[in-house]
């Protein structure tokens, strides 16, 4: 339960960090470390060098405008959770953050770090996938932006390359006429979810449902985003329609049996949670006041 030896460097500038990452394919970035340090201790990960970016204060920001929220690589979960402007523009971030481990972990863990850690049992990758977020990465060869749809490729695997440093997460604003919600079932408060679902419901000017998308965690190797709109052809959130959406979900998820729960049980949860979050997101989408919409 102690990490294997590794070299450590704490760059003073972004360029220094990129130089190290570019010269050592087995180097790893340390930001919050709330997933990485236990992996080091359990020796699941054994990087040659840790590049500690905690000295790069310019990456510790949460910036919000009407288009969305931009989250720097050193913004802690708690910074995103407590940011009033982010809450106003994209309320799903705070709703989801409250389900991420415990406050003690959120005080150190970073939101972008969680996204590129790409754990399909974690909330932030599922939220990033649902909201069509994007990640800007940098290397000594320049910068590029990866759309969430192209980001997740397998368990704990994303398309950020070894020489690249994830700089910023861009999360689009929730559009007017849309509501978002997230819920999950866990064995213990704050633990990994047996199944979790986040949804965005969009309604037209007359209040009819136009689009329903949902994102699933812990029931597939990568965050799974489903378009459930076809269950709502008459535009209503009737029991029959919500049941039909749940049926699409249970047919599409591909959970595995493990010590915490059977595949059948997780599939069942995907249906139950789909009903819950679609109803909650619909209530927010049709709320008459700004408070109710969040």
């Amino acid at each position, binding site marked *: *339960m102690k*990490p294997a030896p590794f*070299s450590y460097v704490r760059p003073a500038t972004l360029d220094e960090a990129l130089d190290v990452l570019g010269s050592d394919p087995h180097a790893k970035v340390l930001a919050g470390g709330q997933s990485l340090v236990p992996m080091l*201790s359990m020796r699941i990960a054994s990087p*040659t060098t840790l590049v500690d970016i905690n000295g790069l204060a310019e990456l510790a920001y949460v910036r919000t405008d009407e288009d969305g929220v931009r989250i720097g690589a050193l913004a802690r979960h708690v910074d995103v959770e407590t940011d009033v402007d982010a809450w106003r523009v994209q309320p799903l971030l705070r709703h989801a953050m409250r389900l991420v481990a*415990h406050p*003690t972990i959120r*005080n150190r863990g970073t939101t972008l770090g969680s996204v590129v850690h790409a754990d399909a049992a974690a909330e932030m990758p599922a939220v990033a996938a649902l909201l069509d977020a994007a990640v800007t990465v940098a290397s000594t060869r320049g910068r590029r932006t990866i759309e969430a749809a192209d980001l997740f490729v397998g368990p704990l695997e994303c398309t950020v390359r070894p020489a690249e440093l994830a700089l910023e997460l861009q999360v689009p604003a929730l559009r007017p006429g849309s509501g978002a919600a997230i819920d999950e079932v866990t064995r213990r408060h*704050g633990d990994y979810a047996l199944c979790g679902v986040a949804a965005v419901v969009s309604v037209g000017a007359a209040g009819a449902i136009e689009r329903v998308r949902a994102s699933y965690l812990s029931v597939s190797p990568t965050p799974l985003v489903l378009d459930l709109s076809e269950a709502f052809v008459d535009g209503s959130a009737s029991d029959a329609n919500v049941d039909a959406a749940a049926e699409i979900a249970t047919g599409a998820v591909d959970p595995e049996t493990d010590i915490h729960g059977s595949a059948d049980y997780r599939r069942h949860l995907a249906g139950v949670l789909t009903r819950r979050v679609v109803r909650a997101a619909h209530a927010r989408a049709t709320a008459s006041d700004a408070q109710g919409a969040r």
Partner: protein
Amino acid sequence: MTSPPEILAPDALHHVSLTVNGAAYDLDVPARRLLSDALRHDLGLTGTHVGCEHGVCGACTILVDGRPMRSCLLLTVSMDGASLTTVEGLAEEGDRLAPVQQAFKDCHGLQCGFCTPGFLTTITAGLEDNPDPTRDEAREMIAGNLCRCTGYQNIVSSVLRAAEIRRARDAQGPASREDQP
């Protein structure tokens, strides 16, 4: 182009300066030294307990610049310059028990005591954020800490009692609170 920073060998020692419970410490540690181990083995502050050592149990929780964090999930070398508070730093002047410590004593909030340091630090910070929690909020406050003895009822009561003691000490005047000048 900048030149890459010098990268020391994996077993090299790194110099780290920490402030722990108001006292300055300088130590030389390998990069892989967990902060929980540095506190216990390098600094001899064995009040911080190590339970699961992978961030689940909360026993090793300390305050980093006032915020609770898991010391087993922090690398010592990454904490250079930080100001830490461990359970040893909670008592008030003259060794009077801090409100949370007194409350645990009053409410029988511990049995074996192994998890207690993590609860005390977590609740100390929790009451700074929410000085008057409901029973439900008290439960939420301690949700990240595991106790295998008490069944949590008395710990929840201790949170509420600690809030009471804080209020009583505040009413007696600012000088009676440890965080006041």
